[in-house]
């Protein structure tokens, strides 16, 4: 091969430059704003008990400098193999620097933070998994929000009428499936643009749940809108493990369902006939068709399964979180789930990670607003959206959707 000069600004260097810049911001801005008081990170749900303590200002500067160092390593362009690790560490150090600044002179209960992050993340995980199922087989699902709403509504209505949380959960799944079925029929059978269908179905779900809420639930909440709450189960022994015990093993069924579904879907996609065919249909449907795979049938199955999962995610809002249905109560969570799906690069574990990250951002926003932080919580709440924009713009590695995602399959 004839030699040609390699461009200097390869992706690693660009990322390194970015990390260095945020590291400098952390060091100087966070460092100078932080009070020189102890920041306590307690290992419990309140201010008591053992804690990790650090001087806020020192911590902010220290972690800022670590961020800068990691950025500089990437800038040298010599650590391409470790790029993802360095990037994650850089972002982590930045977040820690930020926390040191914010928590200086106060305390941050870690168990409560983790618990809250997981709770915020819960519907996001389920919604994003629903998206994974549909999109890996080639059907774009922007109707997660609508599936959430229908799920939440179904859970509240049937849960109240049957006074059973389980009947509520099943109805939530049915609610999700109704929207999924409309999406599937319109997108697969009638070849309507999948993004258009998704958006319109969201409005449809918003309208119909809002309409029925105002007609049925509002006038007679006792009869229609007082579902039982999902019980929290404690697993003896395991729930006493410090920090993760109370978070993971003193929880409701939905948490376990979400956490189990992640590896299950991951393994199934990778190692089963269904998974191989799903991926083939999402990448190259014609190739799958020519070897006898039922392209449309598989897409129907996956979208409907997704509806079940997203519907269960909707149940979170009424059976776990607030205990009653309200108009437009999901307030865009379906779109954050979509963001988690994309940010997680259409993989179950990626979606889990993204959902937890976004859940953490939401929890932190809540904590900061309660703690009277000068940082407006609206800006922290923007984090999932901005992170997703950065991800799709290719600044943090290229995200690639399945090749046939959103493309209806028409023979010949």
């Amino acid at each position, binding site marked *: *091969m*004839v030699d*040609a*000069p390699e461009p200097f600004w390869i992706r690693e260097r660009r990322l390194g430059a970015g990390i260095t810049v945020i590291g400098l911001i952390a060091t100087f801005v966070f460092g100078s704003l932080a009070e020189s008081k102890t920041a306590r990170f307690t290992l419990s749900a309140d201010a008591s008990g053992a804690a990790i303590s650090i001087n806020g200002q020192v911590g902010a500067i220290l972690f800022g400098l670590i961020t800068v160092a990691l950025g500089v390593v990437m800038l040298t362009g010599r650590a391409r193999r470790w790029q993802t690790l360095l990037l994650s560490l850089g972002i982590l150090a930045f977040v820690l620097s930020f926390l040191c600044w914010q928590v200086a002179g106060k305390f941050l209960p870690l168990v409560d933070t983790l618990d809250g992050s997981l709770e915020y993340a819960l519907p996001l995980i389920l919604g994003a998994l629903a998206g994974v199922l549909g999109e890996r087989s080639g059907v774009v699902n922007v109707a997660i929000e609508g599936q959430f709403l229908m799920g939440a509504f179904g859970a509240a209505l049937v849960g109240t009428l049957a006074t059973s949380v389980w009947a509520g959960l099943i109805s939530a799944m049915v609610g999700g499936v109704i929207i999924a079925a409309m999406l599937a029929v319109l997108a697969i059978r009638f070849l309507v643009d999948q993004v258009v269908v998704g958006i319109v179905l969201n409005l449809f779900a918003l309208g119909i749940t809002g309409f029925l809420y105002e007609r049925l639930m509002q006038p007679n909440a006792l009869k229609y809108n007082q579902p039982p709450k999902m019980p929290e189960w404690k697993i003896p022994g395991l729930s006493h493990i410090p920090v993760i015990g109370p978070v993971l093993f003193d929880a409701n069924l939905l948490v376990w369902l979400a956490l189990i579904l992640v590896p299950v879907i991951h393994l199934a996609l990778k*190692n*089963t*006939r*269904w*998974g*191989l*065919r799903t*991926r*083939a249909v999402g*990448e*190259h449907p*014609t*190739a*799958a*068709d*020519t*070897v*006898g*795979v*039922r392209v449309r049938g598989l897409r129907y199955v996956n979208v409907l399964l997704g509806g079940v999962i997203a519907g269960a995610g909707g149940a979170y809002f009424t059976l776990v979180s607030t205990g009653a249905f309200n108009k437009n109560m999901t307030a865009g969570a379906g779109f954050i789930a979509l963001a988690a799906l994309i940010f997680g690069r259409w993989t179950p574990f990626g979606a889990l990670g993204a959902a937890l990250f976004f859940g953490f951002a939401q929890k932190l926003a809540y904590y900061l607003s309660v703690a009277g932080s000068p940082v407006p919580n609206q800006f922290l709440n923007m984090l999932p959206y901005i992170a997703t924009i950065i991800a799709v713009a290719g600044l943090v590695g290229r995200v690639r959707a399945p*090749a046939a995602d959103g493309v209806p399959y028409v*023979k*010949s």
Partner: protein
Amino acid sequence: MVGGGQLSSVASGQEIPLRLELRGITKRFGDLVANDHIDITVEPGEVHALLGENGAGKSTLMNQLYGLLQPDEGEILVDGEAKVFRSPRDAIAAGIGMVHQHFMLVPVFTVAENIALGAEDVRGGPLGILDRRRNRRDVLETSQKYGLPVDPDALVENLPVGAQQRVEIVKALTRDVDLLILDEPTAVLTPQETDELLAVMRSLAETGKSIVFITHKLREVKAIADRITVIRRGRTVATASPDTSEDELAALMVGRDVSLEVSKGPAEPGRDVLKISGLIVDDDRGVRAVDGVDLTVRAGEVLGVAGVQGNGQTELVEAIIGLRGIRAGSMELDNESLAGMGTKKILHSGVGYIPEDRSHDGVVKEFSVAENLVLDMYDRPPFGNAFRLNAKAVADNAGERVGQFDIRTTSAEHAVSTLSGGNQQKVVVAREMSRPLRLMIASQPTRGVDVGSIEFIHNQIIHERDSGTAVLVVSSELDEVVGLADRIAVMYRGRILATVSPDMPREEIGLLMAGITSAPQEDAE
């Protein structure tokens, strides 16, 4: 409804059991009759060539045989039994396999995964867990049995086309096919790879498998086929034996005596118009596609670039026209650098461009003929300016060009998608050749075009040369390059291996296309 199939049905099932019989297959797309009562019989162990030019209806026919399309009329009989193929599943069950012209492989899957897909080895009962080990073993077994080396663990997207084709054939063979359809399998192969494929086909036939070989290349048909069915405009026009001469086959194929030669006088080369040196270009995946090319095209001559598709021709042309950035080297048009100039400016400075993929790059199918005729001049007087279009000038221009270039359409206001392939290509040719040019670049100028239009387009290219334009023709059809060019540059793996005269024996050009140079090649690493 059986049309014209009576004779063969009487003969079938007697001494020779027929592997496959098609009776009166008819397929319409709207008003278009793609297949018009086609009858074909294939015997066991036979290599049956289906010969026809582009658009004759060969692929449509085979897609019906493979269950991708359903015939409107007619019957398909496999081993004497009438079958209805609603989907490829049914065809596979009946022992039919197909290697498509565009490979049906999932690029991000491994070879083994692609071969397993649809016929997976699984364990774990209803869980359907993939048995990768068994799958891998099956692949290797089939691969060794038929002498088709494939690496089961390689990702398909990283394989060269020749290897991908082997994967396709292995994929079909692991499904125990009795009848294998190969749709234009040699289009992407070098002459040497083609010979290897023909040998594989022969040995498969000897094991008793039947092969339907779809092609428009006469040479290959004569080399391999036991029988030849010629299809023209959706109809069977003849069943011939391989003894039939090439000229006769060609005449059957296109329906009249055709001269495969392009008539032209000697070139009168003038100044150097396009000078390229040391050009390096990467493809979309960042892999080196053009690897240090030097080329000169002179006014009044046709420089033909020969080579098997995928050896960097596409990227070379895209770089010249400004559609693709370059990594190193220089490109000059009359001593002015083209690098970084931008496609629009290059086109406006007297470069004409016929892209290789007409429907993808050449025309906007939803636009009218008139709009397509100004597609790269819409913001220039008289058609318009930076702000507005001059609808009247656009329409007037269309009226003129439609007559001049013999574009067959009822109205210039009709969408280009309503035109035949040949007429669509004439729209592109008319657009690019109706302004003063210094350089004309024609990439695969007659791909998917009927014979009448091929002659017309070839004559236009020669006419452009004779008016003093420098012409660069890129084609993977060696016949076309030899017919048009005054000099031929043979491209292989991103490099020009040699520039030769069109009078050079075809076999030697073929060797060059396969990367084999007679003189020991100096390696400029």
